[in-house]
């Protein structure tokens, strides 16, 4: 009975989608040669696809509803990753294996692979940085790429005009991005969540447009080339060696970020962020300075973007405004959402999946953004907590205290 109505409904849904997508999927006009191309095959694809998706949607929905009712009594199914994390006996060998794999990687694979890996780790760090803003503090920042651009351009310009090296530019870039974060954050953080999203989006676009148009300052759309790679006490590296060097710099930065974010999360300010995310008014009633706390999150997130911006400029040795579009912000946001807001491990996993998969599935790279978009919607609908949800630190009572509670 239930299945038949389900199939009937799904058929209706697929009919609706065939109608809905008809002009855009089926017809293509060539306005130059004045021919209409009818792509009837697409219609079949849409029909079949939406039928199957509708069945899956229905099934997931049912499961979600059922899950919502059972959960209080059901013993929590702990994901494998968290289980490994919680038992030191498994954790230490796992970490050692991961460390060895990461250390050996650049020497066994080609430069191409190493560069892809560098990009992936860069996005891990960017994701972790945005995670402070979006995941912990609950401030939707859609202009994150602006700070990334600030970092990249500050290194590129300093290097071009004053021949400043990578290691000096790294803290300067971070500092500049931090200041940009404070400058932007100060006026806009009084705004409510959705306004903030739009203003940061606008800010990201402003930065990109200025970089594109202010030729005297940023060399316009043609960008800046021949940026120095990071140096190591004046030793000249070959291209391969330089890539390996940047790889290890990124690993170092990534470890540093994980350490800092992990400490921050459990600190006083981290808990204030989470409280602010959950309920602003209750949080203020508890005596937390809303503006200061938000500003700290915003500026700290920006700092990481600035730092990675410097690394990005050093890695590609060429930057132009086209690298800093809204799509980059969207990808980083997608990483945070997919990984689970506020979860360090989830963000890392999501960054690696989202950056590596499209690289190795070149044939499907056109479909990358459409899949990102769909993922964001589906994650929000069916699994808002992300791949690996962020664990809350819980104070566990020991047996004696529990007994005490039971019969006082």
């Amino acid at each position, binding site marked *: 009975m239930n299945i038949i109505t389900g199939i009937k409904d799904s058929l209706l849904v697929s009919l609706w989608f065939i109608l809905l997508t008809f002009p855009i999927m089926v017809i293509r006009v060539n306005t130059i040669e004045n021919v209409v191309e009818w792509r009837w095959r*697409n219609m079949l694809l849409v029909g079949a696809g939406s039928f199957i998706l509708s069945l899956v949607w229905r099934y997931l929905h049912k499961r979600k509803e059922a899950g919502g009712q059972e959960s209080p009594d059901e013993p929590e199914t702990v994901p494998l990753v968290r289980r490994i994390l919680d038992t030191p006996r498994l954790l230490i060998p796992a970490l050692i294996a991961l460390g060895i794999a990461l250390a050996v990687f650049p020497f066994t694979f080609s430069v191409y692979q190493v560069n892809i890996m560098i990009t992936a780790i860069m996005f891990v760090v960017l994701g972790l940085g945005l995670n402070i803003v979006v995941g912990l503090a609950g401030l939707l920042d859609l202009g994150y790429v602006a700070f990334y651009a600030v970092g990249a351009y500050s290194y590129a310009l300093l290097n071009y005009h004053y021949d400043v090296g990578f290691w000096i530019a790294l803290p300067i870039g971070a500092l500049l991005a931090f200041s940009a974060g404070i400058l932007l954050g100060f006026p806009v953080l*009084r705004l409510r*969540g959705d306004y903030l*999203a739009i203003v940061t989006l606008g800010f990201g676009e*402003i930065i990109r447009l200025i970089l594109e148009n202010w030729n005297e300052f940023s060399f316009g759309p043609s960008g800046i080339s021949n940026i120095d790679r990071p140096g190591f006490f004046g030793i000249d590296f070959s291209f391969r060696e330089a890539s390996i060097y940047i790889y290890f710099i990124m690993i170092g930065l990534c470890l540093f970020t994980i350490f800092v974010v992990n400490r921050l999360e459990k600190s006083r300010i981290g808990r204030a962020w989470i409280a602010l995310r959950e309920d602003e008014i209750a949080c203020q009633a508890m005596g937390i300075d809303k503006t200061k706390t938000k500003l700290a999150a915003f500026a700290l997130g920006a700092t990481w973007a600035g730092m990675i911006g410097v690394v990005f400029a050093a890695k590609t040795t060429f930057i132009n405004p086209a690298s800093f579009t809204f799509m980059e912000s969207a990808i980083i946001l997608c990483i945070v959402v997919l990984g689970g807001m506020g979860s360090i491990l989830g963000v890392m996993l999501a960054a690696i999946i989202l950056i590596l998969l499209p690289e190795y599935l070149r044939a499907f790279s056109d479909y990358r*953004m*459409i899949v990102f978009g769909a993922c964001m919607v589906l994650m*929000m*609908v069916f699994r808002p907590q992300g791949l690996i949800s962020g664990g809350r630190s819980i104070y566990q009572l020991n047996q004696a205290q529990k007994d005490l509670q039971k019969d006082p």
Partner: protein
Amino acid sequence: MDYFLELFVGGLTRGSIYALIALGYTMVYGIIQLINFAHGEIYMIGAFTALIVSSVLAMYGMEGISVLIISTVLAVMYSAAYGFTVEKIAYKPLRQAPRLSPLISAIGMSIFLQNYVLLAQTSDFLPFPSLIPEIDLPERYQHIIGSSELVIVSVTALVMIGLTIFIKFTKIGKAMRATAQDRSMAMLLGVNVNRVISNTFILGSALAAIGGVLIASHVGRINFYIGFIAGIKAFTTAVLGGIGSIPGAVLGGLVLGWTESFATGYISSDYEDVFSFVLLVVILIFKPTGLLGKTLVQKV
């Protein structure tokens, strides 16, 4: 003086279009407090549908005003259907979720729709046929106001009047206002809130499609990305006028249109979009409720 008038008319035209798109944002925000990021994409889909339909009709030998009417009607219908579907998929399951969730889902939907059109159609700019018929104007005014500008401004004015009457006097309009005021109270009094929300999306999307067809035949070319910038600007318009307020959207559209027009005319045309973003930031800082918005008290 003529240059000033030209810029004035240019600003008026832009402002009308922004207002048409902004109405969708404002109405949706008024009812479910959500920034519908996908709204710009709905407008883009409207323009694309009109382009496809009119090209197909033109190839089968149809001409003149009937092409304009058929393609506009189809564009409005399709945009409304897309708006309806987007709400059902991406927002309806998230009614009870924290505020950030539907917002992220909306961004996802926007990216999805953009790339859907990109993949199914093309990434190039497509020439959009000028559907609006030429009107003979006295020679004195021809270089100040063109026929498409005249049509845009008058259509917008008509739509606004129609919308005001619709919201004020029809049953659906009253239900919409009731839902915007207090959703749970409206529900208790027997208003089908889900249907009201659907209607709002349909109405807003239809208005966006009208804007899409008008601006596309005014500018003369479209691509899959036009919705993004238009969406941000329309949002700016809505915020400028006070989000949730329909006359505010019109006022905001005019202010934004004139700001852009005069700033590009007298200062620099490179920074056209920067001016509107700066205006947005300034308004949000000094008057977050917008020009005609009501102050909302945040409740626990």
